[in-house]
């Protein structure tokens, strides 16, 4: 009895000691990652939250209470940036994802000759250097660039289109550029997911005489829904953070601020203009909140359809 009790106690002691060791070891293993995340993620996030209450020019900062929020509510530039971002989001993301989906199912066809070549060619834009392609696009879309020359030659247009000089066309150029760059990237996700769809489903549909477009709409698209959700979430986040293309295409500002995005505005507030670090930090929280809301909405939409 006593023996049993001792053994039991001993057993318990050993177990808890082992557990403590395991716990300590576990924490030790994740510690480097945690420290780094703390230093480079959590600390900056908290600090920027504190910063968003600061007002002042440059390094002369002081606590300003809610004055940055008041500024935020009556900011015509922020409204313009939100409007531009919304246009990119509503126009560009659906075009790109549809295009990627169509390309993916076309390139998935085993009958297509040179599949590997086309896959690589369409994926290639997203690994090209951003600066190189910006310079190239800028020269192609300049008033006397190859695009205008070609359109004039085909007599589709009577006079050159002011691609980079006009607010409307500037947006079109940005939409073309980011579609060109990121379509292949999204296509890869769809191609990977297509491999997981059972071929027998298509065979059965074909035997039942379902036409190709219906197979695409009623088999491919529903079965790819989780991937489509994923790509639309990352594309939304990417669009909200759109920055590099804009500053490389329009280093001194786009015509009429027609392609000014939230990220570019934050950059301007911090580095181009008289630095308002506090207000810039607050505007960056606008992006965070927008990303959170839009992602949540997209999840809701996808869940509803499933149910």
């Amino acid at each position, binding site marked *: 009895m006593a023996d049993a009790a001792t053994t039991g106690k001993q057993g318990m002691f050993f177990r808890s000691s082992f557990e403590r060791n395991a716990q300590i070891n576990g924490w030790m293993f994740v510690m480097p990652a945690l420290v780094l995340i703390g230093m480079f993620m959590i600390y900056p996030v908290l600090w920027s939250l504190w910063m968003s209450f600061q007002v002042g020019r440059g*390094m002369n900062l002081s606590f300003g209470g809610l004055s940055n929020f008041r500024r935020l509510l009556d900011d015509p530039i922020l409204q313009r940036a939100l409007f531009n971002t919304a246009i990119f989001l509503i126009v560009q993301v659906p075009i790109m994802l549809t295009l990627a989906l169509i390309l993916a199912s076309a390139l998935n066809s085993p009958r297509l000759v040179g599949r590997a070549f086309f896959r690589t060619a369409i994926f290639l834009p997203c690994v090209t250097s951003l600066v190189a392609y910006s310079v190239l696009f800028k020269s192609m879309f300049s008033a006397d660039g190859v695009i205008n020359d070609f359109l004039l030659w085909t007599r589709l247009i009577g006079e050159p289109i002011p691609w980079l000089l006009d607010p409307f066309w500037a947006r079109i150029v940005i939409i073309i550029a980011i579609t060109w760059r990121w379509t292949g990237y999204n296509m890869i996700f769809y191609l990977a997911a297509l491999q997981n769809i059972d071929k027998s489903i298509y065979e059965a549909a074909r035997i039942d005489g379902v036409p190709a477009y219906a197979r695409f709409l009623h088999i491919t698209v529903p079965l790819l829904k989780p991937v489509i959700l994923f790509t639309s979430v990352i594309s939304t986040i990417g669009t909200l953070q759109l920055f590099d293309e804009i500053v490389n295409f329009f280093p001194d500002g*786009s015509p009429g601020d027609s392609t000014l995005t939230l990220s570019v505005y934050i950059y301007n507030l911090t580095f181009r*203009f*008289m630095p308002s670090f506090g207000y810039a930090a607050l505007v960056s929280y606008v992006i965070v909140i927008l990303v959170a809301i839009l992602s949540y909405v997209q999840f809701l939409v996808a869940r509803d359809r499933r149910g």
Partner: protein
Amino acid sequence: MQNSFKGLRRAAGAATVGAVLLSATSALAVDVTVWCWDQNFNGATMEEAARRFQEAHPDFNLEVVIWDRADLEQKLQAQFAAGVTDGLPDIVLIEDYSAQKFLLSYPGAFEPLGEHIDMSKFAQYKVDISSVDGTAYSLPFDSGVTGWFYRTDILEEAGYSQEDLQDLTWDQVFEIGDTVLEKTGHPLFSIRVDSAADTRYMMQSAGSWYFGDDGQPNLENNAVFEESVEIYGDLLKSDIAKNVSGWSEYTGAFLSGEVASVVSGVWMTATVKSNPEFAGKWGVAPVPRLNAEGSINASNTGGSSWYVLSSAPEKDTAIEFLDEIWGGDADFYQKILIDQGAFGSLLEARDGPAFQASDDFFGGEPVWLNFSNWMQEIPGVNYGIFTYEVLSAITAQVGDLTSGDKPTPEIVAAISRQARQLTQ
């Protein structure tokens, strides 16, 4: 254990010796770094200055690093904000419009040069631009006295001689532009859709600026500003100006001979001269004036000054260098005036031979004397700290300015609203 300690000590010893050796060699040659933004202009003048300083100080070595002007300012701003001084230069060029922004936002970042160098040698207005509470922080560099650079051959083909281009208003310039376009097919100007920089000299020609005495935007109900915006809009709309985007397209248009003229600061001389094909075919007329009351045919665009960073490792050498050449060598100023069109601010240099000389590139005209005379007349204004914020507020309205759908007062109101937001 002992062995490893010995090894460590030996390594530390070697490192110390190495460090001592390194610092000894670096003490022999003094490397001073300068950041500026134009290889043909301010970069070239700095290199010339370094050559002259090296004659008496053979161990002096100057490294000139060229950035885009906006990039340079953004880089400075980022490093000041981060509190990191590694990799910053000893001397940096800052445009006059941004001077007060930097001095007020980053107190202590720049060396008060007025405490080391006698500032009475320089034009007072340049010293004032970089002064905070009576202390001067920069070594004044160039004036932005503005002229109308034009191609004499194209204007003559359209029937205009030098006399016809004196003391004009913008209305008259638009008429000339129509005739030139009709007779020669050349637009008169290139105009940037991404920068309203032209409104700067328009405003200053009337002694007005974007801000009132209280530093707040003074845009609505400001007749000078309204007229400047209107002219900028008219240029965007009109065929006499070719719409371009970016600096290189802007300068490329007149360098290639596509457009016939450019209104700019005297510093544009370096760019104009960079295409020798049109040597002898350029002339300089006074800047056109506004209809607004008080506007004259003299103004200023740009202009910049040298600043020494307080954190600079070679601060003392940099100050000595600036004082000796930029603050004392009048002959140096003659050379950079002829070669680069650098209209320096050292007063005694202005009596030198180059400032009286004629220039063959400009058809043998005494252009420097003209610039000198115009400079005496430039109306003084206080640039404040938000010039580029207002410029960006103007370009934000380029769509409405180009289409002409909205009346100017309405556009000015929109500019004013955005400017007030950005200048908080």
